[in-house]
């Protein structure tokens, strides 16, 4: 964000700081029920996984998951919908066969 000219240095620093805080993507996945939150997440399995693994994960964790795309053989971009997105993410992380589950974080130009 420091490309902006004629802006006081402090402002630049604050702007950069503000803009650099990780934010997560709240997309419009499969319609969520009233009171549900939605969040896009990146889930890595411990080995190559098909979409059946995603379905099994959804069943095992009770989190509604929609496949957005597959990044790597073991890594998916998923949209989750749940009553509590933070708790749902924790359940995904704790699930058997899951190596990592992270929010789809927003990045900014430096």
């Amino acid at each position, binding site marked *: *964000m*420091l*490309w*902006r*000219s*004629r*802006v*006081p*240095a402090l*402002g*630049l*620093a*604050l*702007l*950069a*700081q*503000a*803009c*650099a*805080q*990780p*934010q997560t*993507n*709240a*997309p419009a996945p499969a319609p969520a029920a009233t009171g549900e939150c939605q969040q*896009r997440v*990146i889930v*890595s399995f411990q080995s190559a996984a098909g979409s059946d693994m995603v379905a099994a994960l959804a069943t095992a964790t009770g989190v509604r998951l929609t496949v*957005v*795309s*597959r*990044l*790597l053989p*073991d*890594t998916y*971009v998923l949209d989750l919908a749940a009553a509590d997105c933070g708790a749902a993410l924790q359940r995904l992380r704790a699930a058997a066969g899951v*190596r*990592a589950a*992270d929010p*789809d*974080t*927003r*990045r*900014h*130009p*430096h």
Partner: protein
Amino acid sequence: MTQRFSTLVSLAASVALLAVAAHGQELNPVLRQPAAAGDGARVLVKLREAGSTARAQVQAQAATDKVAALAARTGVAIRESHPLAAAWHVLTLDPNQSAADQVARLAADAAVAYVEVDHRRFAHAVPNDPLYNGQWYLQGSPTTPSAVNAEQAWSTTTGSDGVVIALLDTGVRYEHPDLGRADAGGRLLPGYDFVTDTRVSNDGDGRDADPSDPGDFLTSADLATDFFMDCGDPNRPGQPVSSSWHGTRVAGIIGARTNNATGVAGSTWSPWLLPVRVLGKCGGFDSDIIPAMLWAGGIHVDGVPDNPYPAQIENLSLGSTDACTPAYKDAIAALAAVGVVVVASAGNEGGPVDTPASCQGAVGVAGLRHAGTKVGFSSLGPEVALSAPAGNCVNTTPGSPCVYPINTTVNFGATTPGSNGYTDQLNANLGTSFSAPIVSGVAALMLAVNGNLGVAQMRARLQEGASAPFPVSIDPTVPVCHVPASPTDLQQSECSCTTDTCGAGMVNAPGAVLAAARPIAAVVVPGNVSPGQDVAMSAGGSAAACGRTIVSYSWAGDGLKTPPNQSTAIFTAPSTGSVTATVTVTDDAGRADTATIVLTPASASTQAPAAAGAHACRASVPAPLPVTVIVAPGTATVAAGASQTFTATVANSSNTAVSWSVNGVVGGSSTTGTITTAGVFTAPASVTNALAVTVTATWSGDSTNTGSAQVTVNPPAAQAQSSGGGGGGATGLIELAALAGALGLLRRRRGRAA
């Protein structure tokens, strides 16, 4: 002293030989030093004396005596001498004796601090770009120790068109005169737009084949939404934010068209730049950035055509503060496996290094002031590989010129694209975003001299060639940088770098190119070892840099059973403990690389590759074929109120999107006729005389790339006469079809009316 002299001679010889070795892929002529530099038998000698100015004057008066005494003690026949300064003398030696021997004798004298050959020097490759003078960061000067001294590196290589550098950013302005499309003599390859969310993309759609930057401005209405509310200027809450043209800025630093008498110079002169759009309004998301990284490196991504121009270097001037995620780690590892190095900026918060620069395997780059200290805004930490200039304005007040900006290409549109131009001291460009592309450009120069460099070698040799140690500020109030203890432990003022905070040193272009020019030692070791076994190893897969050859091998270590100077060797595996073996390969320029192998009773392991590769000289990547737009039919005659469908065929691009206009007006008008986004032209409802209009399809990738058709709109009677007159051939058929279309339209209208 002798060692230093030897090093200097070796360095000079290496540079000279490297210049000869550089392969002929440069597009622009540069000044090069002759292969035989021809240093004379003249040396610079400094005597071990110091003192006050008055004493120095006395010493100068006595210089002749001191030189005579030195000659007498060393037996060197000094033909001529004159003082340079106090205790410094230029001596002409006996040309009939060995220069090295005479220098060694002088250097061994107790009164001599050091002896250096009076080397002949040559003008470096200075590009003719008129704004180059403002690009201090590419030059070399004692007052700007962080500058990378690219000129010296350019005397060896200005880069290779066999190297592709991907810039994952906001997209680019293809029409910038210092960048330009690769199919039209410029540097920018077609690339791809990976931004999925239309709120971010600002181009009306998700992923597509057009990575042009439409602007990332934010309106007040944008900033009032949850999605954008954190991206405003905290000093101007709710106020619109102008477009950054960030990708265009980054592109110019890496590889603006150079020595073209226009604008600025790039760090490397002749790379291909692959724009991959991952950022838009208020940044971009990992779910787009990570697949874009894979795609840019030539790895298949579902739903996207494979990249025809896989990059060897990816520049990511982006990030945010959190720990490296497994998805980034996996992506960077997958890219490393196919030889793609990821260069990423550390961040502008003055805190811990952002992701993805913090990820293992990435080349994280921190930002320096001109003086070589950390610039206040740069993030820092042990994840940083090395540092590069990021720009600093040196105590200026708002509105006054910035003294050390990172000048580059830019667009001036506040929102949508406007005119193209360059940043300068009043429109200053600063940030670690612009440190990373300097390193990416230097990495491209390295690949030009040694295309076999893998990711680990690239990183190690960037660090090897870096200038170190970091300068320490002479201002006692400037602290030494420390490793951030937490995300809130910010160092937003200048501090003196350490290797724990700013990496191995300040990127140095000639140092990096020299390091790259060393050969790559490779070793094949057996998979299984048993105690006391004869272990055969081969370094035959080692490779020299472009234009060089391996001339010798040297094995060493306990248990070596075979002659040490062959490409293969046999060691006896130890019964207990471990043994370290090495093999050093040397090329015909005297440059060397060493691989280390650890032998245990059960294994043989090495960090060296099994094979160094076979692409030391990178083959040129051919420029893409020009994109053409052809509209069919090329001519048409249409009755007033009738319609004609046109098709646009875009050749040589996966981006086939066009916009349609009539007489230059997108969508046309009621007086000239209208045209839909599908190319259906509808003539004005009535015309009194024949009307000639031009239907144009404009390629979405380049507004100057168009195809057109000429259309005559006739009053109904004239249309009938024209059709009846029988122009014949295709045109006649088109006219008939148009007439039929018009009749059909009339029927439909009547039907609706009924």
